[in-house]
């Protein structure tokens, strides 16, 4: 992050203890403006606690966090934050537009009906503003939750399992929406167990286990090379130790041997492999 640019989220040495249980044990984390960061880790790793500290629901035992330069939990930080909890609920009696209107008033958004309609359209709920929450499917409620998190043009959006109830089309909608947020300069911290989603959309991935950051980096940096596969007239040959740079030489050698080459694929490891190596590998 360049000097002088305010981070969407900055956490230093965050610790959180619940009685004898340590949920976070010295976490450092940054989310830049316009950066999509995926937060991965097993159940109980401390991901939700980290997100809750960032949005002011939980107070850290030690360390500090700031949202857009303001201490996490302060009114200024909360004004700059949009949040979708993993387990959230809106009142069943309320209509979608009433939910959004309430949150507009609480963040003092002047977007009015135009903002509500635009947000509903953005999450794929166009024309559903009059619908009561209790008549919505879980997926529709999750979309409404995302729309609620985007009210007031936040600078940091914290999404805790935002696609857990969504069908593939819904997940696609959310991916597009996240890309749009990045283009607007909004920092996003995406807490998800769906590794493929994170790999597809995130600029950076942070893997947390037992309250500590165990590894982080760009998805392609975390994934290990997986060799080269070559489709030839003799069948598919797998060269697990070969790298991308080796491909021209391999192809030349095969052609020189009189083997026809129909296709070459450089195999990369998946984020899942990297995740398992980071988390399960620690368990020994």
């Amino acid at each position: 992050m360049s000097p002088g640019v305010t981070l969407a989220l900055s956490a230093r040495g965050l610790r959180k203890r619940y009685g004898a249980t340590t949920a976070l044990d010295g976490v450092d984390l940054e989310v830049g403006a316009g950066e999509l960061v995926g937060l991965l880790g097993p159940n109980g790793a401390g991901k939700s606690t980290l997100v809750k500290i960032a949005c002011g629901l939980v107070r850290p035992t030690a360390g500090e966090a700031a949202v857009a330069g303001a201490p996490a939990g302060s009114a200024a930080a909360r004004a700059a934050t949009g949040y979708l909890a993993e387990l959230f609920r809106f009142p069943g009696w309320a209509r979608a537009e009433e939910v959004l209107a309430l949150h507009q008033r609480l963040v003092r958004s002047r977007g009015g009906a135009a903002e509500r309609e635009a947000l509903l359209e953005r999450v794929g709920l166009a024309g559903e503003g009059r619908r009561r929450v209790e008549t919505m499917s879980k997926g529709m409620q999750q979309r409404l939750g995302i729309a609620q998190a985007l009210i007031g043009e936040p600078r940091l959006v914290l999404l805790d399992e935002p696609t857990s109830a969504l069908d593939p089309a819904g997940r696609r909608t959310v991916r597009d929406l996240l890309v749009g947020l990045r283009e607007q300069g909004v920092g996003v911290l995406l807490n998800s167990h769906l590794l493929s989603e994170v790999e597809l959309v995130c600029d950076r991935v942070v893997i947390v286990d037992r309250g500590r950051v165990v590894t982080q980096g760009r998805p392609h940096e975390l994934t290990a090379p997986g060799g080269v596969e070559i489709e030839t007239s003799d069948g598919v040959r797998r060269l697990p130790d070969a790298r991308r740079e080796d491909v021209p030489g391999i192809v030349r050698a095969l052609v020189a041997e009189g083997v026809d080459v129909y296709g070459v694929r450089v195999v990369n490891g998946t984020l899942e492999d990297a995740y398992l190596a980071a988390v399960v590998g620690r368990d020994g």
Partner: protein
Amino acid sequence: MSDAVVIAGHALREAVRRRVLLVVGLLTVAFLGLYALAAFQVFDSLEASDGGFIAIDDRALAGGTLLGLAMFAILFLGVVLAVFLTLGAVRGDAERGLLQPLVVRPVGRTTLLAGRLLAASAVCAPYVVAVFLAAVAITRVAGDFTPGSIVVPAAGLALGVVSVVAISLLGSTLLGATANGIAIFMLFGTGLAAGLLGQIGDALDVDALTTASSIISWAVPFEALYENGLHALTADIGGVTGVIVQLGPFGGASDASAALWPWALAWTAAMVALAALSFRRRDL
């Protein structure tokens, strides 16, 4: 303050949409209907009787006792309403995932609590006053009986239910909804039992009972306000009739000191302050 009004409006809208107020309204009409039936029957039977003991003003005895009964019922209804509007305000709503989306907004937790206090008080206090005035009107029409004071019992009922709202809000920061509801009703029952014991102590001249009752009544001032209101209802009834009506279960034997009102207000404010402190420290 405007945020508190927004939260209060949201809570009131919920009470209307969930038909809480409709049900309360219908049951109150049923209660007043039964009260009117009882009042007309009692005064008609007095009309038909030959007077009995000469020294007793049976119209005042009947009127004072009926209105005392009405006060008891109205306080009970008001407390039920107060408890059900607030029992899950913090932990209950947090456990259901309703609170978190509101708390992360730039609205102070104290403001959220103030909104819930405002909403519940705005329903409960006018409710008990209106039902009490209706009972007074029915008693006057049925038996031409007017209590010694209308303002003191009405104000006592109003402040009494607001104090219950305050203690219920405090309980909601510490206990889940069901546990809080049970705790508040048990506290209410303890107050009423203490009041009855005090009357027994007065009748039998047992100082220990009277002192214990007095301490409990002031510890839970809705009881002291209720007793003071009962006393004010029949304070102008003199002679043997006055003694009999004040010894009855719905007669106020004790006249509270002038310190009751400031004490009840300070107690209510202290409960709200403790609730705010407890809420501010709670991780969600």
